[in-house]
């Protein structure tokens, strides 16, 4: 859903890679979206160079990537567009590529780890632009 005014916009992208951890990354991002934490958008749109996706990333207050493994395709795709995301990599959070079944239990566990990491950040998320200070009223 499109965010009015760009105030507090957080966009999230999954690598959605072919491996088990890529599939889990996709499911994790969809779950975080359904919880209303962030707005999911298409990494493929960025990779294809579509201006709407690129400018939305540049205008968002924060971009978040969830990658299955350390190849970090989602993170690097955004960085190629000069956008620095808050990056989460599932193998860094304990999953093993090629050896992890795609189960609800693991998806929920990864969501909780990401939410926990976000509430106790090691480093400050990148400063964004935009925001109209409307407090959601406009």
């Amino acid at each position, binding site marked *: 859903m*499109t*965010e*009015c*005014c*760009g105030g507090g*916009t957080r*966009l999230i992208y999954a690598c959605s890679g072919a491996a088990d951890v890529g599939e889990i990354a996709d499911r994790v991002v969809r779950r975080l979206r359904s919880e209303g934490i962030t*707005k999911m*958008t*298409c990494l493929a*749109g960025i990779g294809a160079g*579509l*201006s*709407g*996706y*690129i*400018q*939305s990333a*540049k*205008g*968002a207050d924060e971009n978040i990537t969830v990658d299955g493994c350390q190849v970090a395709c989602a993170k690097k795709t955004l960085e190629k567009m000069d956008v620095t995301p808050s990056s989460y990599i599932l193998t860094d959070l304990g999953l093993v590529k090629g050896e992890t079944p795609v189960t609800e239990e693991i998806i929920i566990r990864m969501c909780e780890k990401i939410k926990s990491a976000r509430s106790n950040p090691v480093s400050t998320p990148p400063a964004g*632009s*935009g*925001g*109209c200070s*409307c407090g959601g009223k*406009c």
Partner: protein
Amino acid sequence: MKIEILGVGCAKCHKLEELVREVAKNENISADICKVEDFKKIMNYGVMTTPALVIDGEVKVAGKIPSADQIRGWLKN
């Protein structure tokens, strides 16, 4: 030249439309300027945050209001 301002009707969207019309007028640039409020049309551009400015099908900015100088540069190119 076709210019579209994408937005669902917030203050920033109106401000961007006014700014674009003002710059086009001052620079004597003939353009078809229209406001797009249809949510599906906005989503078709992949735009996740408004206001957004589209010139001849290319999204130039989303989620913020560009400066008059930036708009002028886009209109003259």
